């Protein structure tokens, strides 16, 4: 497994002792890469781009199902109104 790549000179994070786990359990045993939450947010000067893309992706992947559910609800309501209208027509016809 390739060792963590060299230190990024801009920050003074000391290299984390990366243990060499067997591949399938790697994400369990790899310790957290970040030291502080603020560093995590900054994403090393690329924060705006990373969170920009994550934000839009999450937003759209939430928006789509919400729109779908609303679309289905309005369709169901419309169809029920139609069925009810047809039922009343049929009943008035049979009564006449």
């Amino acid at each position, binding site marked *: 497994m390739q060792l963590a790549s060299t230190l990024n000179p801009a920050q003074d994070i000391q290299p984390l002792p990366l243990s060499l786990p067997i591949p399938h359990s790697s994400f369990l045993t790899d310790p957290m890469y970040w030291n502080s939450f603020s560093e995590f947010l900054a994403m*090393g000067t690329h924060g705006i*781009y*990373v969170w920009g893309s994550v934000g839009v992706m999450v937003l759209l992947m939430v928006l789509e199902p919400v729109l779908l559910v609303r679309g289905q609800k309005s369709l169901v309501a419309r169809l029920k109104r139609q069925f009810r209208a047809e039922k009343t027509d049929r009943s008035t016809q049979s009564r006449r």
Partner: protein
Amino acid sequence: MSNKLINWFRFASPQAFYPLAGRMIPWFWALAAVFGIAGLYVGFLVAPTDAQQGEGYRIIFLHVPASWMSMFIYLVMAFWAGLGLAFNFRLSGMMATALAPTGALFTFLSLWTGALWGKPMWGTWWVWDARLTSELILLFLYVGFIALQSAIDDPRRADKAGAILALVGVVNIPIIYFSVKWWNTLHQGSSVSLTKSPSMAMTMLLGMLLCALACWMYAIAVALMRVRTIMLERERHTEWVREELGMKAKEQ
């Protein structure tokens, strides 16, 4: 072989498929959430930084799955459309129609994340890289498919016309990709291209696969939801739709 296939599909008539899809959707949402969280955790919290690209490379965990999905969904759409054309099953036509918007969404996301990744790496929002350009053209193909289907009123004709466009499109994608690649290397040389993404450390690869699986489950869940709505719309004159809704009316 074909009649075995036909009666298997006969079973998947809209009437039988509607409740079945209803039961499957929560499972796919659960899978999407699990894979999504795991993928993001590995990608953003565990994966180490990259020597050349710093932290910005993490966008790869979103960009590459989105690109894979945009291409994969178009192929699945063309498959369902082709099946619908060959055996004219109403269900497969609806499935193709249900997949298109999600495919277009992933193509847009692939372009969006590609641009946001390009800005810190090469200083420009848009790079005429062969793959990014092909994604843009793929977006036009999706929009064309959706526009064609919405312009035709009769659902059966819309399905068939869409199927032909999807099949013609699927044949043309490799040609477009090849010609764009040729054009890209001719004008710009391959100095700037996405192919030189960072070498795949195990955790990075794992993160990307998890995100891809999450997107895949998401796509299935959304497609099933949309296909159910389409079914209700198209089969509104049948008895089983009346029961589906009638039952609900009595419960209230």
